[in-house]
């Protein structure tokens, strides 16, 4: 068990021009914390994890695990265990041998290895498969073997690189809960990489959002959702994504079609435009007499309890797309024009139209 610290850690991929895969990352992960690194493809999240694992060089800055500087230490000296996206099981070894391999290398006695493997196998419901080779296992079982291999080591830190992305949807949700429960039980510091923001929100104590190798925000899931630091985080966290539109600012506030949204003067001083962030659940359908803006319905996604309405509104001189969460029992139909209003003006997020930074 240990805390993990990235200090200005960078990874530069050589080339013309060189690419900053991870750009001066500063991150402190507390002992026992479950931290999720999330971001779109190419955001550097996997590179950041591999730097911690020792599989990727650190070009500048430093990384420490516990009190130890491991910046240039090889993987085996870092006391970490990693679960790979492809599981990376040893194909020529049985499940038991796969799980016991690391201990075997360290010269742990056979009896101790067998004991620990059996214990981990029971925890992961793998006892029946200990003598099988990976090829004779299903995807979900292979995933659990990869987890087992990490658990048996009793490392200071678990590293997980999109461990659920090869599972089907149902199993993914199940395994997601299992991993979170397991981590809580073992209390081992965990760094978990995913591109799936639902995974990030449901599993992490804190979530670090990366984009183009730069850390955008690192906070609890709730804070990320309620107070995104910039327009990128706002658009990335939440499903369906937040509606982000740049609208003109008038004397009275921001202008969204017929709707005028009063803005605190201090935050929008000197700006002629502002980027509005409105979550789908902040919008609602209103009657024709209420203040709102017209929306032509293009698509209705019915999810049972709720429905998501995708529509196009004519604002200013261009068409803009919006998503609304509406009641699942009586959704409008395609082709209809509806009037959209706000539930609560306090739930609107304001961002700088140029930099995308949060404005309050």
């Amino acid at each position, binding site marked *: 068990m240990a805390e993990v610290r990235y200090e200005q850690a960078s990874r530069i991929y050589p080339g013309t021009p060189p690419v900053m895969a991870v750009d001066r990352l500063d991150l402190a992960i507390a002992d026992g914390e479950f931290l999720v690194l999330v971001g779109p493809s190419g955001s550097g999240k996997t590179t950041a994890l591999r730097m911690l694992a020792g599989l990727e060089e650190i070009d500048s800055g430093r990384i420490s695990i516990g009190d130890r500087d491991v910046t240039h230490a090889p*993987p085996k000296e870092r006391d970490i265990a990693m679960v790979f996206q492809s*599981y990376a099981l040893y194909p020529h070894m049985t499940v038991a041998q796969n799980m016991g391999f690391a201990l075997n290398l360290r010269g742990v006695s056979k009896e101790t290895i067998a004991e620990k493997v059996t214990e981990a196998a029971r925890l992961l419901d793998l006892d029946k498969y200990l003598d099988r080779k990976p090829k004779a296992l299903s995807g979900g079982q292979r995933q659990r073997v990869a987890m087992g*291999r990490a658990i048996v080591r009793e490392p200071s830190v678990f590293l997980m690189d999109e461990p659920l992305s090869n599972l089907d949807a149902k199993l993914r949700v199940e395994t997601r809960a299992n991993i979170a429960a397991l981590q809580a039980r073992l209390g081992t510091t965990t760094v978990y990489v995913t591109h799936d923001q639902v995974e990030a929100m449901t599993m992490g104590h804190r979530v670090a959002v990366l984009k183009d190798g730069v850390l955008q925000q690192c906070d609890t899931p709730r804070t990320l959702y309620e107070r995104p630091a910039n327009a990128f985080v706002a658009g990335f966290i939440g499903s369906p994504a937040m509606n982000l539109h740049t609208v003109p600012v008038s004397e009275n506030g921001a202008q969204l079609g017929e709707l005028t949204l009063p803005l605190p003067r201090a935050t929008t001083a000197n700006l002629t435009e502002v980027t509005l962030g409105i979550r789908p659940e902040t919008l609602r359908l209103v009657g024709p007499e209420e203040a709102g803006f017209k929306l032509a319905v293009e698509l209705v996604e*019915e999810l049972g309890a709720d429905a998501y309405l995708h529509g196009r509104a004519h604002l200013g001189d261009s068409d803009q797309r919006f998503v609304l969460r509406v009641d699942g029992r009586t959704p409008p139909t395609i082709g209809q024009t509806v009037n959209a209003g706000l539930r609560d003006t306090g739930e609107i997020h304001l961002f700088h139209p140029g930099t995308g930074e949060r404005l309050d």
Partner: protein
Amino acid sequence: MTTAAPASPADTTTPRTAVRGPLRHLLRTASWTAGAWLAGLVFFFPVLWMVLTAFKQESDAYTTTPHIVFSPTLSQFKAVFDSGIGPYLANSALATVLSTILVLALGIPAAYALSIRSVRKWRDALFFFISTKMLPVVAAIIPIYLAVRDLGALDNVGTLIVLYTAMNLPIAVWMLRSFFLEVPREVLEAARVDGVTLRQEITRIMLPIVAPGIAATALICVIFSWNEFFFALNLTSVRAATMPVFLVGFMTSEGLYWAKLAAAATLACLPVLLAGWIAQKQLVRGLSMGAVK
């Protein structure tokens, strides 16, 4: 559940093609099968002829309308054994086995350095290896002969071992490298995280996974060394002569001994067949066997 604008009507498959499809498919399969059998027979026929001739009397072997029906005899095999095949077999076996072991011992680390942990200029190194095969052996035989003579190493199995190793090493490095590249990178990384040393990474993870590829490479080396004729003919005479040289002995100035030659050739094929059969067990094993996904 998604409601969207109605999609264009699904494309309709005409029932006509549904009736004709299977028949055409059957015909195509049958013609491919027939072609494959024909090609197989063309390749196999000389081998069959060799084996048949080996069981003939010398007089039956010479008939201009070849006899398909004849009374088989083992006398040619006996004659071959009586003419002292032993030392030739031993020399061939020694040169083949030792050169193959040497090739693998040198080729595996080289291929590792050119694939998994690429050294700088690995492309140039690879090209250098294969470029040595571009010169015909005939072009190099005089300098090789002179060098071997001056070293006092003519008619010596050791010389053949060294030459066969050099001859097979480039191909082996290329083959091994391509097999090594098939090993999922993440499996090796997992091993490094688990704490392997470089040596353990190769012996405990890499080699077991690429065992089929190593078997294939070894088989190729065995075949090439066993059948090598040119060096053996030019650099050996009595003590170190190998099987191919022995075979030529049946083409004498008094005439060809077809049946004896066929019997000796049949015997010469057996070790290679045996090696192929042993390697096959490894070859059929799937390469990565569910390591990833």
